[in-house]
């Protein structure tokens, strides 16, 4: 999206400047008493005309697409506290997820972990063969909470942990009927 906006920007900018130039030329032409520069179809055109519908649809759809493009072309980053005046420090949510993931995998009993992080939330899915969810989850919540707290993040994300463990499976499985 960022690339698309960058590619479209020169054309959109020139189009806006061209519209401004056309407006000034029309006014200047009329002021000089030479009549109108632009064709006079608009005075005869009524709102009920089919051309109005086509033009209106094109304008609305193009406007909506442009608005979506402008909204999605931003870089998402996590803001850290400013260490000094005029200094802005940011990091990415992927980087935060990596840090949390390394820390969680270091814990005893954790066989694997996947982490998704955003500005608002850090979600950890850990697997363990040694411990069940009831014992491991509070510990991991504390570890992840401390890891996130250790980073100078301006708005601290919420932490959630899920543990998958074979120990949590029901011991007496109902027999499968055939």
């Amino acid at each position, binding site marked *: 999206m960022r690339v698309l906006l*960058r590619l479209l920007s020169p054309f959109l900018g020139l189009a*806006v400047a061209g519209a401004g*130039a056309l407006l000034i030329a029309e006014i200047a032409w009329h002021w000089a008493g030479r009549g109108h520069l632009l064709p006079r179809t608009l005075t005869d*055109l009524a*709102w009920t005309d089919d051309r109005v519908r086509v033009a209106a649809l094109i304008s609305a759809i193009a406007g909506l697409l442009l608005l979506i493009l402008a909204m999605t072309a931003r870089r998402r980053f996590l803001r850290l506290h400013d*260490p000094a005046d005029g*200094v802005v420090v940011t990091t990415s949510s992927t*980087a935060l997820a990596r840090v949390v993931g390394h820390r969680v995998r270091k814990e005893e009993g954790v066989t694997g972990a996947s982490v998704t992080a955003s500005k608002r939330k850090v979600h950890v899915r850990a697997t363990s063969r040694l411990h069940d969810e009831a014992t491991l989850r509070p510990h991991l919540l504390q570890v992840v909470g401390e890891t996130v707290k250790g980073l100078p993040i301006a708005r601290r994300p919420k932490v959630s942990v899920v543990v998958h463990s074979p120990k949590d499976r029901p011991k007496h499985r109902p027999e499968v009927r055939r």
Partner: protein
Amino acid sequence: MIARSNRTERVCAAILGTVALLVGAGALALHLRRVDRPVLEPRVLDWARDNLLLSRIGAIVLGLLLIVVGLRWAWRAVTPEKHPDLALEDGVVVTSGAIADAVKADVEQVDGVSSASVKVIGEPALRMKLTLRQGADVRAVWQELDGVLGRARNALGVTVLPTAVRLDLAARARQRVR
């Protein structure tokens, strides 16, 4: 290297998109409600004729505004980012590359930083990306940043040095196969 901000492009695109969307939606609404009046409303045209000078000046100002905004938008999108040199007193000029290399060498000395890239983007202003080693103390690096930038401020003889810092945390170390 992190790219420069595209805020100007995004804001311009958002404004243009909103205007196009509102105009399109409004025209469509009038069309669907079968408003049987000319698109160029006669009452508005009559008012403009009665206040000819005012409406002409208004239109010319609007046209000039569109030209200025459009050209700036297009120009910003097509010109590469500037990396200005810094002129000190007595006609001494420090090139942007020299400043960037000096800051890069200094910041790479910080414990935990594995690599850095620095660019001069203003007179003087910096943008840098720091890649931190796995297990690096992020808060310590963050605190050390002020020291690094303080030395840069002193060396350049300025009181403020606006800086955008991007931290890439816990990046995997490059492994070389022999």
